[in-house]
């Protein structure tokens, strides 16, 4: 088995790795880089817990071989907080009670983050569409939608 060299940016920092080709981006983030904020819930792109933003778009890190992320810019939940300040999305998730067990939340945040980057004025339907690939078994979703709306409003002020 030949290992391969990959290089990408995670949360603004360069990562250079020599990895087995069958490693997924999720494995590299969690195991090699210690970024355990990104969760694994289903392994085949059906729950969204592993969502990260790759080159500006929300993707499942469980369905991308790390090698495919070569050269990419990746944002994980750990990268949303800047200088100890929570991102408006994080703040609003907290304040609107969008969090229960919290396991799906990193994925929800990253899907919402990608949405707001592309569409700073989302309607409720846009928000629902953006997180349609993120399953939450606890909350019932409503507070999550409200939190994203509030964060968008805050951004737009």
């Amino acid at each position, binding site marked *: 088995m030949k290992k391969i060299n990959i290089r990408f940016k995670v949360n603004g920092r360069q990562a250079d790795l020599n990895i087995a080709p069958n490693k997924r981006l999720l494995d590299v983030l969690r195991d090699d880089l210690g970024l355990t904020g990104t969760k694994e819930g289903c392994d085949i792109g059906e729950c969204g817990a592993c969502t990260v933003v790759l080159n500006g778009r*929300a*993707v*499942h890190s469980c369905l991308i071989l790390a090698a495919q992320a070569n050269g990419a810019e990746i944002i994980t939940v750990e990268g949303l907080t800047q200088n100890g300040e929570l991102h408006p999305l994080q703040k609003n998730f907290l304040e609107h009670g969008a969090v229960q067990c919290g396991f799906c939340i990193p994925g929800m945040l990253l899907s919402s983050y990608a949405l707001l980057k592309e569409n700073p004025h989302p309607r409720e339907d846009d928000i629902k569409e953006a997180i349609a690939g993120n399953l939450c078994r606890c909350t019932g979703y409503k507070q999550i939608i409200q939190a994203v709306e509030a964060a968008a409003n805050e951004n737009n002020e």
Partner: protein
Amino acid sequence: MRYFDYIQPENIKQASESAGRDWRKALLYAGGTDLLGLIKNEVESPAALINLKAIPGLNGIEYSEREGLTIGALVKLSQLSAHEVVREKYSVLEQALKETASPQLRNMGTIGGNLCQRPRCWYFRGDFHCLRKGGDICYAVDGENKYHCVIGGGPCFIVHPSDPAVALLTLDAGVTIASAKGTKRVALKDFFVLPEDDIYRENILQPGEIVTHIHVPPVSEKTVSGYIKFRERGAWDFAVVSVAATLRINGDTIIDGKAAFGGVAPKPWQEEKINQKLKGLSVKPGNFESLSAEVLKEAEPLNQNAFKLPLVRNLLKRLLVQLTAS
């Protein structure tokens, strides 16, 4: 996931040679959304993956009034549905793309990969050595077959999972297939195969052949098109059934039209008879009702999926009414 080599060809020829040399052992890797799932579920156990990403020319979307749309096979679904021309002229395709899977998967999955994805049958994906995986029986025939095909099946009863393929059929799309030997262009309706023709594949691709482009002819200004996908929950389901239609309308008459159906057959399904009847049909609900009643006349549902027939007929009627409403 078991180990595999990671091959990074720089052009189609290299990719085709790598893939053709080692049939079933080396698999093409585009978006990976289906492939990694297949590997995880042990449907596929490749010795090598061939990454198509570095091959130039597969990422573009081009449009000309003469040629219509030319879509590189590696164009992501979300990229394609956001394309201005697609939104303006090819509603049926835009809608089908937007209804596919989830946002994350649309950001990763490619249009070429979508057309070439493997079926979602739970026996095929599950721990069953079924016909399509080289076994002796189709477990769906006498098993849990609510989601299986009602027409075109046998000896295997999968449905084809692609949404865009159904839309593209109504647009008379074609694909370019390349290999080390050269390229050829094939109409999309001739691209997919039924189990009776080949139980192990869902399309005509031979080892070493790669879909490089999808071609969608131009549409006239009087064309309307749309796609209705029916799924049980609000998001992230493959179609229970889906209906696509592209119609050219003049006044109260459909000059020309095509309909296609997903979730009913092992390939995206079209019925020539229905398309013929659409031609010259005057826009009246009663006409749509009787036309829809003609759909899937030859269907032979399995014991749990007869509901797909009224469903698909009602949806066709609904779509025709919607498309001709204005």
